[in-house]
């Protein structure tokens, strides 16, 4: 990218600047186009799941509906509630959107890689933590009780689900050895390109996929974890006092977060971008982008599917679920990943003499043994934690009956 611009300007720093600009505009444009596609998938998909058609009036199959919505939200009056904290109210959507878009810097679209930094995964998780600050700002600044409650819930939920999310990524990073997202995808690239090499198909990868997926559902406030913006009880949670342009920004940020989550999941667990024929020079990049988008939108459809089925978790049950179900699973998963690595890669000098008997590092026998060991540990852990949670259950309140 930089070489191309250098040819035009011949001046070093100007070329770098322009190349950065082109990449960011490309990401922003592609991001919002995909966001529009996501809203369309959500409304049409949910419609068909409920035996009804989704929007089909604006454009063929309702494809221009998101555009109509964008125009509507942008032209709506943009009010700031009286004696609300004006600047914080204005800045909240900016903070939320900024943190979401920043995460796209590292996500490769198939073979097109915006930038490849060697702490890619850590960067994604760090940037998405800023998202929580934005929610609290929005909740607090709207001077509305429902918004305050929504904001508080949003923060509590985001913090308590970041930890299992990060820990599940730790086991993948251990597996791959490097934190760069590109290396993670590379690790799943098998010489003869079969899909069995994806992370999701190893027991370790599967459990971390489950934990990561559920935790990021909560991170992106998707049902069953859409407490911060709970329609039925908090009217619209922290978004209650936002209208017009600011609501459009919040809405865009919400869907971009969901897309980022699907993209990261596709990349880390489903080998984003690589599939049969993705390594041919020119056509390959196109194919890889197609694979990447197919996987991400497929995962988004699963999000919509879950939205069509499950009711919302109460905020305290949500906390129990995070700390008492996901976190232990993530820790157990890290333990079983270490076993997996020890069995497959280590030899005598690392003190794993007995593994030598099974053959050279990375041999089929070793992989099989590793498979069996980690599968047993993970399955036992899953049922044990589920049983423990069920018996002690959620604390129930017993109301004291008095006349009203």
């Amino acid at each position, binding site marked *: 990218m930089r070489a191309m611009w250098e040819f035009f300007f011949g001046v070093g720093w100007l070329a770098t600047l322009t190349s950065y600009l082109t990449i960011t505009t490309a990401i922003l444009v592609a991001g919002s186009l995909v966001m529009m596609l996501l809203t369309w998938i959500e409304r049409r998909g949910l419609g068909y799941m409920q035996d*009804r058609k989704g929007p089909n009036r604006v454009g063929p199959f309702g494809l221009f509906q998101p555009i109509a919505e964008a125009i509507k939200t942008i032209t709506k009056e943009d009010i700031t509630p009286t004696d609300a904290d004006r600047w914080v109210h204005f800045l909240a959507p900016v903070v939320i959107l900024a943190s979401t878009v920043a995460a796209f810097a590292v996500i490769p679209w198939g073979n097109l890689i915006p930038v490849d930094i060697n702490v890619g995964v850590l960067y994604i998780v760090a940037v998405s933590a800023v998202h929580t600050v934005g929610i609290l700002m929005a909740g607090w600044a709207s001077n509305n009780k429902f918004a305050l409650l929504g904001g508080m819930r949003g923060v509590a939920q985001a913090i308590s689900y970041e930890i299992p999310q990060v820990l599940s990524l730790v086991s993948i990073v251990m597996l791959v050895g490097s934190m760069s997202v590109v290396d993670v995808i590379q690790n799943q690239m098998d010489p003869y390109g079969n899909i069995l090499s994806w992370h999701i198909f190893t027991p370790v990868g599967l459990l971390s996929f489950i934990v990561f997926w559920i935790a990021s559902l909560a991170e992106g406030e998707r049902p069953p974890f859409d407490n911060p913006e709970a329609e039925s009880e908090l009217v619209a949670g922290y978004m209650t006092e936002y209208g017009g342009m600011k609501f459009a920004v919040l809405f865009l940020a919400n869907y971009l977060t969901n897309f980022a989550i699907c993209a990261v999941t596709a990349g880390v667990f489903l080998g984003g971008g690589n599939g049969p024929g993705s390594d041919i020079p020119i056509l390959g990049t196109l194919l890889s982008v197609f694979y990447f988008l197919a996987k991400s939108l497929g995962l988004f459809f699963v999000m919509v599917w879950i939205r069509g089925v499950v009711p919302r978790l109460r905020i305290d049950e949500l906390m129990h679920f995070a700390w008492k179900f996901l976190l232990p699973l993530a820790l157990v998963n890290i333990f079983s990943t270490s076993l997996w690595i020890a069995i497959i890669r280590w030899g005598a000098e690392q003190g794993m003499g007995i593994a030598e008997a099974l053959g050279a590092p990375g041999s089929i026998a070793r992989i099989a043994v590793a498979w069996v060991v980690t599968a047993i540990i993970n399955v036992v852990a899953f049922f044990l934690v589920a049983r423990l949670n069920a018996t002690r259950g959620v604390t129930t309140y017993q109301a004291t009956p008095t006349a009203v």
Partner: protein
Amino acid sequence: MTATPEQTTATQTALQPVGGGGVVVVERKQPGQSYGQGIAKGMAVVIRHFAKSFTSRIDDKSDQAGMFTVEYPEERMELPEAYRNMPVLLYDDKTGQELCTSCFQCERICPPKVIHITQAKDPNTGKAVPAAEEFIIEYDSCMSCGLCHEICPFDAIKMDHFYELSTHDHLAMDQNKAALDRPISYYQAIAPNLWAAVEANAMKKLQNNVKRRPGNIGVAPHMIGKTQKALPTAAAAGAGAAAAARPKTPVAAIGKNMSPEKVARLEAIRAAKRGGATMPGESEIVAPSPVASGESGLHVAESQAGLAPSPATTPAPATGPVAAVGQSMSDEKKARLEAIRAAKRAQGGGQ
């Protein structure tokens, strides 16, 4: 989930039903054994519906999955015969004679009191004639309960199947006789069996009523010119000519039991109509052809177009200056309204 029928406490014995069946304790799902299968089952159901809604449509009442949407303006649900939305008056296609003999039954039974009838007078003898001079229904507060349809002894007022009534002008909703008339063939098209049941009785009563109606009294306004059969009575020609021109000042009918407020209210509506009467195009409203209910344009839509001043055209003269007078307003309210109405008329006239 089969509920296990079992008798619980002794109280059930007193509840022993004649027809059989007892008390069933619903079976609660035991907590703890499920690891997400419940959600998985739910997702299976939803994805089955997702797939089926592409392939099949729900047509009859027994299938349970498939596309259910009826795209309204293009596809329409066909309405059952008994469907009732707004009352309309019937008149005979051939002779144009309206079935209504202004017996005031429907006015009396109407719960929200929206029907106003004035009995027609024979212009030369001044005697009451079994026909309606003015028949006004305020469509905006009629709740389509159908009681008028049931009580009318002459089957003159029937419930229509027309529901596209939206308008932004209350006044346009005061439907006078010209707008309410429908040919019998139209009602026969939308409700064949209902009409067949009452046709014989209705037509017999119409015949002997027509005999007592001189001239064009009972004829639907827009059918006055077009009646094929010449009226038998000799006076028809003379009276016909007089009545042909639109009745200039409607004769103040003395209703059998008109309470003062009702007279005032009628006066107000008539004033409103007179204000609107000068509208071009209002009187030549062609009766809708007896075609499926969807297409039959309600006069309010057409006359409404004439009345409502669309911004683009030149400022049409003010629509009816005043609406119905308060049904049971105390006197000083009426006096004040009278003063304001006069002011409005002056302002309206000046334009």
